[in-house]
């Protein structure tokens, strides 16, 4: 492509130069012809003038007069031969220069190279009295050469101008090429930057939502604790015989427990829940809850585990178990007609951020991934999946806090959460936990 764009002006320049050369040659030939024609005309005119003026001398064989007329022509240096002939074609006057001989009879020598021969009859009132013959040098060689040199110079200059134009044209197109490549790169970088900014904005949004909801949940939790404490006091003072009243209290306590659980999850998302991190190997953790996982996903889902990670990490073990169970149940819900859930762990040394992460610190990580073969998520759903209270489940089936809480817990533990999914292609949720030293 680049090669072609470069060679096109060169080709055009070559063609133009060839055209110029051809035109130059044609013009030179034309000028030659023009000059020759002009010269023939010129000599012809002189011959006619001589013929008219020499008529009397020819008619009455006046050699001296004829010679005087002929001598008058010597002022024209291009005339090489002049001859005057009487009615019987006998030469009666003439001159010759430049090694040429005066022909014995008019018009006998053929016009050859380098000279122009003209023979004109001498007539007076229609009567032919004799003839005159003139021969002139063709265009002098040096004048011809000078003209050709001029032409060559012109053609050369023209070709030079064309060459310069073609060169600058090709340079220009090269520059345009570079410019368009740079522009493409700039656009790509701008797109990349826009995506990064979007991810950052999303992270900030989550941060803000987390702070807000965390504050509310914290105060709410305190209120629940007060309500529960008072309920406990009330229960002690209730008449054991009043079974109906116990039931009311029990129902209220149960509701308060659920409310407390909810606030716990909100706190988990907002990273304000109290965590008790301790060193753990995720591969071991998954193995420990293997039976529970199998039970949770049900019989229609095939569970596969590939636990290759050996490194240790630090996190709240109970919360991590909850997270894994939660994600497994999500996967099950995404595969109503059955499928396969693959839980894998592996050790990773990451220098670059995995796709979809705006903020990331390079280092060693233990990756835990849950991959299902379910319905997958659209890009819109995927981008909002960790938003609090966002759920695709029917009303009442989910709180919309499962992934939010997971996200909050992982971030609070110093890890990262990446969701990869496409409609019909299943989903893969990966948790990157930073590696810690093996406990002594």
């Amino acid at each position, binding site marked *: 492509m680049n090669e072609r764009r470069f060679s096109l002006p060169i080709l055009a320049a070559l063609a133009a130069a060839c055209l110029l050369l051809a035109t130059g040659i044609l013009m030179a030939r034309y000028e030659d012809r023009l000059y020759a024609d002009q010269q023939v005309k010129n000599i012809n005119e002189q011959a006619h003038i001589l013929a008219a003026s020499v008529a009397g001398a020819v008619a009455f*064989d006046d050699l001296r007069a004829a010679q005087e007329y002929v001598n008058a022509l010597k002022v024209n240096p291009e005339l090489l031969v002049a001859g005057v002939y009487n009615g019987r074609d006998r030469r009666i006057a003439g001159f010759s220069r430049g090694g040429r001989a005066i022909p014995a009879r008019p018009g006998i020598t053929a016009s050859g190279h380098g000279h122009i021969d003209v023979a004109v009859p001498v*007539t007076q009132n229609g009567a032919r009295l004799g003839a005159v013959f003139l021969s002139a040098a063709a265009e002098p060689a040096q004048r011809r050469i000078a003209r050709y040199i001029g032409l060559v110079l012109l053609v050369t200059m023209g070709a030079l101008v064309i060459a310069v134009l073609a060169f600058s044209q090709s340079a220009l197109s090269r520059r345009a090429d570079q410019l368009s490549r740079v522009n493409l790169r700039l656009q790509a970088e701008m797109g990349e930057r826009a995506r990064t900014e979007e991810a950052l904005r999303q992270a900030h949004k989550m941060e803000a939502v987390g702070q807000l909801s965390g504050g509310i949940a914290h105060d709410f939790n305190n209120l629940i604790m007060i309500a529960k404490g008072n309920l406990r006091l009330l229960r002690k003072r209730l008449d054991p015989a009043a079974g109906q009243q116990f039931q009311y209290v029990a129902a209220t306590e149960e509701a308060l427990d659920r409310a407390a659980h909810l606030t716990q999850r909100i706190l988990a998302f907002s990273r304000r829940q109290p965590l008790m991190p301790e060193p753990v190997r995720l591969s071991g953790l998954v193995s420990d809850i293997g039976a529970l996982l199998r039970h949770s996903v049900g019989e229609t889902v095939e569970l596969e585990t590939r636990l290759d990670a050996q490194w240790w990490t630090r996190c709240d073990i109970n919360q991590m178990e909850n997270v894994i169970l939660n994600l497994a149940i999500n996967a099950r819900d995404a595969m109503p007609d059955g499928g396969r859930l693959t839980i894998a762990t592996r050790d990773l040394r990451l220098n670059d951020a995995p796709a979809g992460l705006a903020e990331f610190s390079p280092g060693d990580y233990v990756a835990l991934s849950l991959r299902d073969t379910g319905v997958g998520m659209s890009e819109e759903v995927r981008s909002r999946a960790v938003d609090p209270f966002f759920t695709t489940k029917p009303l009442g089936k989910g709180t919309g806090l499962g992934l939010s809480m997971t996200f909050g817990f992982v971030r609070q533990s110093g890890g990262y959460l990446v969701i990869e999914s496409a409609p019909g292609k299943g989903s893969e949720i990966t948790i990157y936990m930073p590696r810690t030293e093996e406990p002594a």
Partner: protein
Amino acid sequence: MPGRLAAFIMLAGLCGTAQAQSSLEYTVKAAYLARFAPFINWPADAFAGPNAPLNICVLGPDPFGADLDKAVAGQKDGDHPLAVRRMETLLPETICQILFIHDAILADEALEALGSRPVMTVTDSGMRAHGIISFIVIDNHVRFDIDDDAARRVGLSISSKLLTLAHAVRHRGGR
């Protein structure tokens, strides 16, 4: 150059006898007589018609023999073919454009008789009377004098090309 004329007799060097010399003289004169016509302009009524012959008349004795007929053969002056007519006397109805007279007595009479008729009279050398053109022989070369004033009087015009070749010219206005 005007007047400096030298009619070159081609074969002069080859001819030893006076007889031969004399015969050559008339050969040249015959050729001249035939060549005068293109240099002379006659009025239109001098001819019987547009294609009528241009008559070169020889009055009285003919010194040319066949030379004049040869010189005239096939020659034309414009549309007029040249013709030779020989006559003993000059009749009023005779049309001559050029009249050559060899005999001195006949010349006097004829010049008198012609008056202002547009005839180019040519008289031979060696006589007193002069026509418009009169031959002379100088150093064995045939030359001629021209009386342009006489030509004007009879309505003829003579080309300057011919005038410049004349040995002597009597110019118009009688100078």
